[in-house]
């Protein structure tokens, strides 16, 4: 084992020809609204010159560029060589490399479910002592983030493994303000109004929704967000938690009802662009394009806060497109639930540099550096909100703060086999005509097989 460590270290050292060695810092090293003091103190106290740090994650393309700019600051502060590699099939890659002992130091998991799976197999290393307390005290709604990052280890003991970095708000509906103005439509405040608006648009000869579930091997996941949002809007948060933990079965009438609530939108040919058949085959990255078509192919698109990355070039937030909160039923008295998700860092191959990087993540500036580039929300309570790139990010931050209930994306918390497997394919089956009760039963059967 020792030999393999040496050689893999040597290979990494050879291959990571200093991606950030002379990395220039995208936002200078002083000024702006950034929290420099804690950063400078951290830089003073940490020296990792000559060490290397490998990080992998699911951020590719544009997001990869952004996170690399943040990592450049870690490199500048510590001297450690950081190499980030993003992959679209991160979920598979990380399991393969961790199983075979060639994992990078840190992995940015888009799915706590997968991280929990790996922790229980002993493939993750717990974070330094005291991290849990720190998160509880310094994150908004801190304890919930601690809970979300705490998993059972190989022996069944709970340990803190995950440090949340980037949060997404999912309960958002995107629309083109101009199209709304023209049609004389108002932003719906309740689910009843949203449904009325949907019918109104159909009556006016338009198509209200764009829904696309396509995502390569992960096809189906956007539907799981819909169902989760519907769960939060039709049953109590306690039921939601029970559902996530499978204490409430997947084929419980409440879950089936939520699936059918989603079906009321997605399986109605008049409601969705291209008809119900297009829902399953349209790529989720293509689906918002209908909002911007002239004439509009649809008026509303329910998707998480990351979606502007896939809007056509030159789209201006607030001008060409805006969002509103996916509303709750007025008559169900469930408050304003918000569905969210988030990426977390976990240590897959321990080293000093990996621990130092987690320390770096505690600094407000590590969050501000991405906030200022857009497409990033954080639960870190110490950040300077002025660094948010635009008003809409700030508005999403507000939704996050004002929520009466915040719940994490259920499919991310379920075991990978369900949340990143059976649930996805089940939703595709449902959208293409299968019966909700049958689909739910199929998913529950798969779940039973795991236990």
């Amino acid at each position: 084992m020792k030999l393999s460590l040496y050689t893999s270290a040597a290979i990494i050292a050879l291959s990571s020809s200093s991606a950030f060695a002379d990395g220039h810092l995208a936002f200078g090293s002083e000024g702006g609204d950034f929290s420099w003091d804690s950063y400078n103190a951290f830089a003073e106290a940490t020296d990792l010159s000559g060490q290397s740090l490998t990080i992998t994650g699911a951020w590719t393309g544009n997001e990869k560029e952004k996170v690399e700019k943040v990592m450049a600051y870690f490199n500048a502060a510590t001297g450690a060589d950081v190499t980030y590699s993003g992959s679209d099939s991160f979920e598979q890659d990380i399991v393969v490399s961790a199983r075979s002992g060639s994992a990078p130091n840190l992995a940015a998991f888009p799915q706590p479910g997968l991280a929990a799976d790996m922790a229980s197999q002993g493939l993750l290393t717990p974070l330094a002592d005291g991290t849990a307390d720190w998160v509880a005290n310094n994150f908004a709604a801190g304890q919930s983030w601690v809970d979300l990052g705490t998993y059972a280890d190989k022996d069944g003991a709970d340990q803190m493994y995950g440090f949340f970095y980037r949060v997404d708000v999912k309960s958002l509906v995107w629309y083109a303000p101009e199209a709304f103005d023209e049609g004389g439509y108002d932003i719906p405040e309740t689910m009843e109004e949203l449904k009325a608006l949907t019918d109104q648009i159909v009556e006016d000869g338009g198509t209200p929704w764009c829904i696309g579930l396509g995502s390569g091997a992960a096809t189906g996941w956007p539907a799981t967000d819909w169902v989760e949002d519907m769960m939060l809007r039709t049953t109590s948060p306690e039921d939601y938690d029970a559902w996530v933990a499978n204490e409430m079965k997947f084929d419980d009438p409440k879950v089936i009802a939520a699936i059918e609530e989603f079906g009321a939108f997605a399986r109605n040919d008049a409601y969705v662009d291209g008809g119900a058949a297009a829902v399953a085959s349209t790529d989720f990255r293509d689906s918002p394009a209908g909002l911007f078509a002239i004439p509009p192919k649809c008026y509303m698109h329910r998707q998480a806060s990351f979606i502007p990355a896939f809007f056509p070039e030159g789209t201006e937030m607030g001008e060409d497109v805006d969002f509103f909160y996916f509303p709750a039923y007025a008559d169900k008295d469930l408050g304003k639930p918000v569905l969210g998700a988030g990426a977390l860092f976990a240590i897959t191959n321990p080293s000093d540099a990996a621990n130092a990087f987690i320390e770096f993540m505690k600094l407000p500036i590590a969050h501000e550096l991405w906030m200022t580039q857009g497409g990033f929300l954080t639960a870190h309570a110490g950040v300077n909100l002025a660094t948010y790139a635009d008003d809409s990010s700030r508005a999403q931050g507000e939704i996050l703060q004002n929520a009466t209930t915040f719940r994490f994306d259920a499919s991310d918390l379920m075991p990978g086999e369900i949340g990143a497997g059976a649930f996805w394919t089940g939703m595709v089956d449902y959208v293409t005509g299968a019966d909700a009760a049958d689909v739910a039963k199929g998913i529950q059967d798969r779940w039973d097989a795991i236990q």
Partner: protein
Amino acid sequence: MDNIAGTKPALSWAVNISVVLLVVLWLIPTVGLLVSSFRDRDQISATGWWLSPFPVSQNYQAKAPADDAEINGGVNVITGNVFEDGKGKVARFGGKRAAPTEFKAGETAQLTKDRTLTVHSDGSYVYTSPAEITRDPSIYYAASSPPEFSLDNYRTIMASDNMDRAFINTLTVTIPATIIPILIAAFAAYALAWMDFKGRGFLIALVVGLLVVPLQLALVPLLTLHNKVGIGQSFLGIWMAHTGFGLPLAIYLLRNYMVGLPRDIIESAKVDGATDFQVFTKIVLPLSFPALASFAIFQFLWTWNDLLVAKVFLPSNSESWVMTVKIADDLLGSKGGDWGILAAAAFISIAVPLIVFFTMQRYLVRGLLAGSVK
């Protein structure tokens, strides 16, 4: 000259026409991709590639700047041109997003609240409103743009970071992974074809059996082994993996070819006192050249186009990505909806196999022929 074609003119025509049909059927999908790779993103989603030589009619939106409003005869008027450079031709226009082509160019549209809009075919417009204009009013119009073909998609791909690196990586993986298994297999194939020993039948059966082993089975145990030995995820590892996976086909093909070589030559050489090693290097190897070449081409195409093995046995960082991984993981992820870019990327990745294939085709045919035709 006996043949179906050639004997009767009618039949000859039928043959020619059906071959043309088949060829067209086979070419169409690829042509679609090729044409699309030269088109602009907007044009791709506006019309199908089969309409690409024709002008594309698209709907656009322009804003009339409210600041330019003048009061003229008691109404607020904005005049201007929807085309920034003044060039273009408006076919139809409208004042509503939901009905962008309601009016013909030159007509005067009556909008809500007594507003009017006139757009002429040269793009100049007049917008009037009795009330003060506070927000920039939108003008929607349909104009046709000439077909555009450019190398922009290819430029974008080439400029994307590490594409050149991915190309070199692919070559680096492919060449050793092609040459090494051929050598190893050639010796083994000779032994199985022309040497007599106990267990030969069993070994041939084993090779034939291993031909069908699903590759997926081997991935996890082997990567674990590589890590234990200290190779880890590296080029050395992928060369060895491709060698192992390519061997059954190589041995099978080469043995079949070698068995077909004339027995007299080999036996007379042996009678003359040549050792097996000499027989192999001096007689069998040169005679087997077509089979060696055809396997080489096969293995080259297979390793070049491989996605699965590369994903497992190479580190997942952009420094060691090969082309297929780059396209599947990086480009498909970040440019998911951009068909033009994807098409161009696919073409770049299939260019080399196509060149290899068309230049080496002759050998491929000869080798395959002898390998499987008795």
